[in-house]
């Protein structure tokens, strides 16, 4: 479904641009990945004993799959609030360069900083990728409205998926519930692997998966954080050694 040409009257109002953004959700394959991921997060939250409201609020307010999974799995397995907060902080650092690189795409000379707050909130890997794809086809002064529509549309997809996943986990047979829970690690492993182009990222992913079980044996209460820092630093070391060679 192509967007209207830049000079089309379709772009005459902000509201229409917003609707174009919402409609564009149907034109992205990433929405399907997002749906599967949030189906899994809904089921994960249910089986970790969080309420449905809690689950939906975490999607609306956090709006970052990795951070939500970290909060649910760490708190669900009895980690302290501090450990969860630290792990989430580190996982969320990647949002900083994403926001920095996405905002110039829609800034105009009259844009105030507060106009961009909601765009910054919606920025996560899916929106970041799609902004680079769609925005060249959107008139600059309508881009903020368009991105609001795109973010809102994606949010609706995830909230529906969350609710379905949560209810399915509560009502399905054990085997199908397990199948939905398995969606989360599978979808995250492969979408992260797909986004890992640098050697450091690939090494971090592989080492992170392999080192966690060893750190879990120590049962320190900081397993995820420690294995992440060690695996990530070793991966960075490999990247440095390669760069020097």
């Amino acid at each position: 479904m192509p967007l209207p040409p830049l000079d089309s009257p379709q772009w005459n109002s902000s509201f229409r641009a917003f609707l174009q953004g919402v409609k564009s959700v149907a034109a992205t394959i990433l929405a399907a990945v997002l749906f599967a991921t949030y189906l899994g997060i809904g089921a994960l939250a249910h089986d970790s004993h969080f309420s449905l409201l809690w689950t939906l609020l975490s999607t609306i307010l956090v709006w970052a799959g990795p951070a939500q999974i970290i909060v649910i799995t760490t708190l669900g397995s009895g980690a302290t609030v501090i450990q969860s907060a630290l792990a989430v902080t580190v996982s969320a650092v990647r949002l900083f360069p994403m926001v920095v690189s996405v905002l110039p795409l829609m800034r105009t000379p009259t844009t105030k900083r507060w106009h961009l707050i909601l765009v910054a909130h919606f920025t996560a890997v899916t929106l970041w990728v799609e902004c680079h794809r769609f925005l060249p086809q959107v008139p600059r002064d309508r881009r903020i409205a368009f991105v609001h529509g795109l973010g809102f549309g994606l949010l609706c997809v995830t909230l529906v998926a969350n609710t379905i996943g949560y209810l399915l986990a509560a009502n399905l047979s054990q085997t199908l519930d397990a199948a939905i829970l398995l969606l989360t690690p599978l979808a995250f492993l492969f979408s992260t692997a797909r986004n890992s182009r640098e050697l450091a990222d690939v090494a971090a992913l592989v080492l992170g998966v392999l080192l966690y079980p060893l750190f879990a044996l120590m049962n320190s209460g900081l397993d995820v954080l420690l294995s992440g820092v060690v695996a990530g630093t070793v991966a960075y070391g490999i990247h440095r050694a390669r760069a020097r060679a």
Partner: protein
Amino acid sequence: MSDFIGDWHALLILLVAGVIPNQIWRMLGLWLGGGIDEGSELLIWVRAVATAILAGVIAQILVQPPGALASVPPVLRYGALAAGFVAFVLTRRSIFAGVVCGEIVMLAGKWWFP
């Protein structure tokens, strides 16, 4: 209804452990903007640690599975992930193929060795 809301304490924890530590970075990006080199060495290290933490969480779900996933034997959980990964690589990085293959292996395993 109280099932839907759950316990208010948990919502407060969500704010402290999930929302604030996550949003800090978006708001910093909004405030500081510009002048950050995405290829800088510090950011490469941070991204590697962030990726490894996420990888650790993926492993945690498989090693110490929540709820119904615990009913799947460990061999089958790791096997499903490995099979999905092979499909992912063979299809030149198709997320869909990897997820579907992993799910089929897990469901087939449960079917044949209940």
